[in-house]
Every structure is written in structure tokens, then in C-alpha cells.
């Protein structure tokens, strides 16, 4: 059992998570926002796998399976909305969607 200390796994997943988060915040194109969402979810998957392996339990991996299904569902709905946005606003720039204010 390659004894990678738990801290390293957690730090890796946190880094990956922050990369994904920054991707959501910075990217202007909606498609890339969805992609960075995926990155964040996968980062969490890594954390779960790491934690699961430390405790020698399958819970972590089951949770990862659930996260995968979640990611799939979200992307499906996200892409559907993407198409609607493209048809309605002819652009994928996210800042078009900011009419409600105050």
C-alpha cells in the first residue's frame, strides 16, 4: 500500500479545488465555467478516495460514485441551458446574463 500521507492527498485536492473555483470565477465563457465545475467535483472525488483509503473503508469510493452521477446530471442540465442561452442571446458570454440588479 503506497503510504502517501493523508495530508498530501488533501492538499492536492484543495489545490485542484481552488483551480476549479478560480476557473468558475475568472472564465467569461459559460462552457468553460461548466468545465471548471467538473474540475472542482473531481477534486472532491480525489479527497474522498484519499480519505477512504486511509480508513480502509469503501465509503469514500461510494461517495465518489455518487459525485460522478451528480456531475453528470449537472452537466446535462448545464448544457441544455447553454443551448437555450445561445439561441436566445447569440453569445456565450456570461455577463450578458446580469439584468437583475439592486
Amino acid at each position, binding site marked *: 500500500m503506497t503510504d502517501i500521507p493523508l495530508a498530501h492527498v488533501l492538499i492536492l485536492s484543495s489545490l485542484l479545488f481552488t483551480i476549479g473555483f478560480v476557473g468558475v470565477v475568472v472564465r467569461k465563457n459559460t462552457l468553460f465555467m461548466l468545465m471548471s465545475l467538473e474540475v*472542482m467535483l473531481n477534486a472532491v472525488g480525489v479527497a474522498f478516495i484519499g480519505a477512504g483509503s486511509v480508513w480502509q473503508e469503501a465509503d469514500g469510493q461510494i461517495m465518489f460514485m455518487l459525485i460522478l452521477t451528480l456531475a453528470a446530471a449537472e452537466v446535462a442540465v448545464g448544457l441544455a*441551458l447553454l443551448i437555450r442561452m445561445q439561441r436566445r442571446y447569440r453569445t456565450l458570454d456570461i455577463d450578458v446574463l446580469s439584468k437583475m440588479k*439592486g
Partner: protein
Amino acid sequence: MSTSPEITNSVILSTEMFIALSPILLLSFGIVLSLLLIAWRRSQKMIALFTQFILVITLLLTIHLLSGDILVGSGTQITTLLNVDRFSYLSFVLICISAFVVVSLSRSVLKSEVEVHDEYYLLILLVVLGAGILVVSDHFASLFLGFEVLSISLVGLVGYFREHEHAVETGFKYLILSATASSFMLLGIAFIYSQTGNLSFAVSSNVMPWSAQPLQIFNSVGILLLFSGIAFKLSLAPFHFWSPDIYQGSPTPITLLMATVSKVAMFTVLIKCCFSQNYFNNESFIEIITVVALLSMLVGNILALKQQNIKRLMAYSSIAHFGYLLIVLTVSSLQNTEFAWQGALFYLSAYLLANIAIFTVLLISEKHRDNMSGDRDIHIVDWHGMFWKNRLSAVLVIFSVLALAGIPLTMGFVGKFYLLNQAVIFKSWWLISGLVIGSGIGLAYYLPLIFALFKDEKTLENQVVDGSGVYLVTTGKQLFMFTLLISSLLFGIFPDLVSQFIYR
């Protein structure tokens, strides 16, 4: 995508557990049946009636279970994932009531559309199912599952009316933000799991295995991340930015659904998680709770000050109200969690009643204005002089706004009284002063709303409501409004009617 547990062998699910879980099972069975119904005959009225039927049956079943003695004490544990006790089913009752109201209200909204909207009702049932899972969950996995069922189906509902101008914007915002929030929550769960090794709420201190030494930092950051995910859903202060836009953009019944069902479910699961993990003696967690509560009390009230759009105003006021509710979490010891639960449930029912009333009147005035062309949102100026034109809805709005403001004679005051009781017992002076200042500022926007009902300037500058302004309200709606008014007054003056039902 509900997993129906009957397939696995029965040793896991004894009959007694089966009975305890029966309302949620009935609900999921109902969803499957409505899918079949859609496949058989697509008629708008049929699916609406069927959904209402399902919700009523679930409600009756839950009430029957509550009056029975199965759920006494700490409740029955169903597999490690779920734990059913009195309080979860009490909040499930609240959820079913508000879902039933949402369904009956949206029948009139959907009637004006041309094609059949059966998936609308299906999504609402899914939301209720998600809330049901959340309410009884005792394990992070069930928490996660319920959370996701709730959020994904809400995304569908929020952008339902495609041709509304903000539909896409609302859908997208809700999707991205709830996805981020759920990933933050998951990260938190991962960190907690990595430290404690068990995902269920029940506290078990199994020892750290050989190599990794316990990293206390990850545990507290994990709790914080978990709380931030839940706080997002409850639109508490620092994470509240999404709620005004989503409340304004989505169709009114769905706003009501979000304001009531999703928040009640999330709050119940937050209390269950905190009390079972006894986070309350974790000093930093209490600190976070106090900061977030203070922030949301102040930010929620201050933002609502000059708000003219009624939906956004309701969003801000719900931020403030859940800020008040957080006082319940600052419990100091295990045995008075009972008292905290009672306070929370009473306050939630008062909040629900007030929101349902205001949104019903909002829907009526919206329906009236729709056939007057222009689907701009309802602003306070549209409600001018409503007291002199149709008195019942105006009186209803007055009493529900007073309930939100926490003035006696209404249920809201007794709820606030319980919260204050809680706060004074545990000497959380900061929260008390936050509550006092918050309700002071709150009056600055609740009162103009009430006075607007009395204003009857003859010269309405932006002529939105026609001269007569008298809405034609179906007798059913009037009866419904009358019951709402009577119940809010009755429970306000005689709170024992509700509390003896809770306290058994």
C-alpha cells in the same frame, strides 16, 4: 433517480422501519405512478389533481405516524443513512403543506399556457422527495443525495417558463451557484471524513489509524465548508447574493417553493447535524454561527430598506428571518435541544404561514395584472389602495407582514418570543442586540409596505392597476385566504394550539 430499497433483502429493512419510512416511500411510489400517468394520458388537470392527491396522502400518513407512538424518543434508525424522529416528520408536515399550496397555486398560473405542463408537477414532487430525504437523513451521503435531488429539480423549475425574459439567466445562476455550493459542501464532508473516518451524523470516536496524525485544521475547515454549503441554500448573509435575483426571476409559485420547502428542509438537516454531532460545544463553530447570524440579520434588513419589488423584498426578509433562526443553534447542552427544536419549529411555521399568505396575494395581483398586458414584476406601487378596493387580501397582507415584523397579535411575535427565550437563557448578548436592531430596521420597510395598502392617491402616476382595481377572486381563493387569515390570528393569540401539537 430514486433508489427503491425493496429490492434488497428484508433483513436490512424490518417492518417497523418500513412503517417509519412509509411517507417517503409512498411519495417516491407516487412519482413513479405520475410518470406512468403521463405516459398514459397527457392532461393538465389530471396530473395536477394526481399530484395534489399524492401530497395529501403523504401528509395524512405522516400525521397518522406522528399521532401514533412509533416516533417517540430519539426515533427509529433506518440503515445508517436515515433516522426518523418526531421533529423531522413535523418539518415534513410543514413541507408537504407548503408543497400542496404551491401546487394548488400554480394550477391557475399554468392554465394560461398553451401546452401541457406535466413535468412541472413531476419536478415539484421530486423537490418534495429531496426535502423528505433531507429531513430524515442521518448520514452525509443521504444529506448529499437529498441536497442534489432538491437543487437539480429546482434548477429545472426555476427557469420553467422559457419565454420569460429572465428565465435563462435565473436558471444558469442557480445552477452554477448551487453546483459550487454543493462542491464546497462535499469538500467539507471529505475533510471531516478524512479526520473522523465516519460519515454518519452519530458521533463515534474511532481512533486514527497508524500513519496519519489527526490534522485538527482540516476538521474545523471541513465543518466550515459544510456549513457554508448549507448556508448557501438557506441564503444566510455572506452567501446570500444569489437569492434576490433567483426569487425575482423565477415564477412566483416556485419562489414560494424555494422560500418554504427548500429552506425548511435545509434548516432541519442543519439542526439535526449540529445536535447529533454536538457541534455546539465546538467553540469556533458557535463563533461562526454568531457572526453569520448577525451578518444576515443586519444585511437582510438593510438591503430590503428601499426595495420596491415585492419578490426581492421577500427574499431579503427571508435572509433576515433565517438569521434570527440561527439563534436556535447556540444551544449550550444536550437536554435543551428539545426546547431549541420547539422554538425553531414554531418560528418556521409562523414564517411559512406569513410567506404563503403574501405569495398568494402576490399571485392574485399578478394574475390580475397579466391579463392587463405587461408582465413586469409586482411593485409596492401596484398595491396602493388595495385596502379600500379588496379588503380581505389587504387585511391578510397586513397580518402576515406584522407576523414577519414580529408584532404581537400574530404568530410571528410568539416565534420571536421563543427565540428570545432561547437567547436569554444562553446569554448570547450579541445575538439579542442583533435581533433588536434587526427588527428595528426591519420595521423601516415593513411599515411602508403596510401604509402603501392604505394610500389611495387618486392620481396613480404609473397607471398599472386600472381604476377599479377590484380583482375578481374566485371563491376558492377567497376561502383559502380567509382560512389563512383566521389561522394566523388564532395561532397568534392562542399559540398553545400549535405548541401542544409539537411538544408531546
